[in-house]
């Protein structure tokens, strides 16, 4: 009898403990976030374009205003990742940008793929920030948008660029946290909170 009561007491204590564990699992399923994603990302940060739109430089300006330790290198390669703790990719195609950089779209796609692979090889988290709205969507941009988004651990997107849920659907599929904002300037808050 005594053994029965001891066993019953242990089972009673186990019930709330198990309930707490279940709550954690439900929360994880709802957000698609794992506890590690809530941890702050580290600096210094490297910001690169994917598609050579000037949006990378806009984001660079925002990081300056946030006083983050960030360098913008639109044509970043693996060599630029030395000492970097976080990579921010700002996707968006620009014919003028590619012309200014003197590269063809296919060369740019190759550079971006190599950069992403190098970052992943060094366990450098990748954040995608899409601020170009509709202007940086469409057949020419979406190749770059997809390549960057699929490698991201976090996305911040100006909602005009996600009217067709391109980024949201990708985020849901890959369980990547995504924050949608109204304006470019509104990316500052979620971006700041990541670091």
């Amino acid at each position: 009898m005594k053994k029965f009561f001891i066993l019953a007491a242990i089972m009673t204590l186990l019930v709330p403990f198990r309930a707490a564990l279940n709550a954690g699992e439900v929360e994880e399923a709802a957000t698609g976030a794992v506890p590690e994603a809530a941890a702050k990302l580290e600096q210094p940060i490297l910001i690169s374009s994917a598609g050579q739109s000037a949006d990378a430089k806009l984001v660079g300006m925002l990081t300056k205003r946030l006083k983050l330790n960030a360098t913008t290198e639109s044509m970043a390669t693996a060599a630029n990742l030395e000492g970097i703790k976080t990579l921010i990719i700002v996707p968006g195609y620009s014919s003028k940008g590619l012309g200014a950089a003197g590269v063809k779209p296919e060369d740019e796609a190759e550079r971006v793929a190599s950069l992403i692979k190098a970052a992943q090889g060094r366990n450098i988290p990748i954040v995608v920030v899409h601020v170009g709205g509709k202007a940086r969507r469409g057949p020419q941009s979406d190749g770059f948008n997809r390549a960057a988004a699929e490698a991201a651990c976090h996305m911040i997107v100006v909602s005009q660029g996600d009217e067709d849920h391109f980024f949201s659907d990708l985020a849901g599929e890959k369980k990547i946290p995504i924050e949608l904002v109204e304006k470019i300037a509104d990316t500052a808050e979620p971006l700041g909170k990541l670091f």
Partner: protein
Amino acid sequence: MIPKHHITGAIVLLIFAVAGVLAAHDFISMWTPDKIYPSAALTEKRRLSDYFSDLKGTNADTDVLIFQGDRPGATVMLLGGTHPNEPAAFIAATVIAENIVVNAGRVIIVPQACASGFTCTDPFEGYPQSYTLDTKSGPRRFRFGSRVASPLDSWPDPLIYTHYPSGQRLSGFESRNLNRSYPGRPNGTFSERTAYGIMEILRQEQVDVAFDLHEAAPEIPIINAIVYHEKGEDIALAAVLDLEMLGMSYAPELSPTNFHGLSHREWGDATDVIPFLMETSNPIQGRLRGQTNAELVIEGVSPEYKEALESGALRIVYTPTGEPLKHRVGRHLQGFQALLNSYNMYHEDNPVEIEGLPSHQEIMDNGLGNYLH
């Protein structure tokens, strides 16, 4: 007895003669200059030939309006009408000229940079020769011109246009395009000489920051954009962020170093000026437009572009309710003011201070005509 076929021939000749006279009258009516009424802040009215005397007496000569503030500051130059078939650029320059007050620095406005292009329209485009805006002083007619200088001023076009001095090769048609002719040369083609004259303004007036206003077809990739030379990157990006706070989106675009002849590249390479070029979306320039008339210039409503937008098959910049002239002019004015504010932020020791210009919202609320004499 006069043979019947002689009578027929005479009648046909007479019909064509009358048609020719009417067409000539229409064509010559485009030679009448547009009237611009500079604000009371105008301190000097010059001509382009004052900067390059070879242009005197030619159709390249055009008004250069100078507004000098009481206090020293930066010198700004603004061009409208580089492409006379881009009406928001010309009208925006006109609104600025007719409303501006300069407190510090100088603002130099060339409302019709390609004066020759205002004397004709482009063949086969069916463009109207003019459009009329209701203004404070009544209906006011403005010419709608060609993209390029008149063939009467520059003929014939070469098969291939080789840009001086880069050697870049373009279609011969571009030899009459002012915005492919910079930096120009004093002994070059008509457009090269015009471009040289404008470069002389930059040099002689020691311009600090310069603007070239444009429009483009809704399907063109560079639209609703601020194109900047690398010297002006921080200024452009800060302005884009500030404009966004007002709910207005401008795509920042870096001027390519290997695309020659354009103001945003050559002005910045050849002088100390920081150049900017702005584009708005103009349905009448587009390939998908339907009826091409003055109403399309002013209202900017194109059911064809609406259909294209709704199809999702094309990447175009077109608001379903249209791209009216007042909205496009408003964008240019707001962009101009934002870039100047941003310039001043980075040049606190040498700002240009202006007032009197309407915002985009004021133009939309009160109408464009309220800001035209």
